[in-house]
């Protein structure tokens, strides 16, 4: 699978398969129940920049995933599965994503 990852980089960005092209914007953050020390440090740094209005910061990861699927429902289900299996570690992280069709 590691080699598959390398190959994917070389392929064109529309992915394999027929159907419509979708793009998902995936946001992965630590679960609310898990402490986020990075977020805390950034919060304190923002306070020292005088952004006293800031009450909380949480740090996460952002992915843009392009995927071929026959419809929106199928694309959504694929993205959710890839989040569960790789993009997020669901022991500590949660995810959300926005997804829409890419008009050619």
């Amino acid at each position, binding site marked *: 699978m590691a080699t598959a990852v390398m190959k994917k980089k070389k392929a064109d960005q529309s992915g394999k398969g027929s159907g419509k092209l979708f793009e998902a914007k995936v946001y992965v953050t630590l679960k609310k129940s898990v402490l986020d020390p990075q977020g805390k*440090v950034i919060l304190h740094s923002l306070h020292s920049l005088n952004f006293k209005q800031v009450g909380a910061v949480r740090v996460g990861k952002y992915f843009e995933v392009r995927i071929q699927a026959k419809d929106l429902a199928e694309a959504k289900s694929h993205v959710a599965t890839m989040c569960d299996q*790789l993009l997020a570690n669901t022991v500590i992280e949660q995810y959300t994503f926005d997804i829409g069709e890419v008009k050619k």
Partner: protein
Amino acid sequence: MIKAGVIVFPGSNCDKDCEYALKEVAGARVQFVWHKETSLPKLDLVVLPGGFSYGDYLRTGAIARFSPVFSAIKKHVSEKRGVIGICNGFQMLLEAGLLPGAMLRNRSLQFICKNIFIRTENPKTMFTNHLKKNQLLNIPIAHGEGNYYCDPETLKSLQGNNQIIFRYASESGQVNDASNPNGSIDSIAGIMNETGNVMGMMPHPERASEDILGSHDGFGIWKSILTSLN
């Protein structure tokens, strides 16, 4: 003589140290296994060494589990053969689901590289049978993501099944917040699976196997493994 295989990933950097400790100090037969191998030779023990496999991309240990060798390791585990994952090797075992839980950034957000003490919590395992209950080991840690986390139910089952093998402790053996270097839940430094053949630990026994390295306390782990597998 037991036969051990040290798996080498791109970015492994403790593979030679593990080979040296097992072969030259403990007296096992050791071979390296490149991560692209799809099968393992007949091994009594698999060592997943420390390092920065795949540059820690995405999450520590997250990509290593897709290496071809990992399906052979899963088979090795299902045959109840031994596996020890050290540091990045522990992170791989968590990401691969061979051990429960996950690693977070150290609570200090700093990479910590220093000698600490761990307390032996369960000496009745294939990894610790030469150690005594509550025995303290002076041993180095070197990690940025060693803050072990699991949900409360998992923690309860780890505690109930004596799967917590090592906890971070002070020099006098106290386990508390001050002696916890990275923020790990319940001061966990090492755990094993329910079957008892897979252990992951953040500290590096291979870097503390001889007096010339400043501590030989890690040797007890190699000796335990060799005794139980022989």
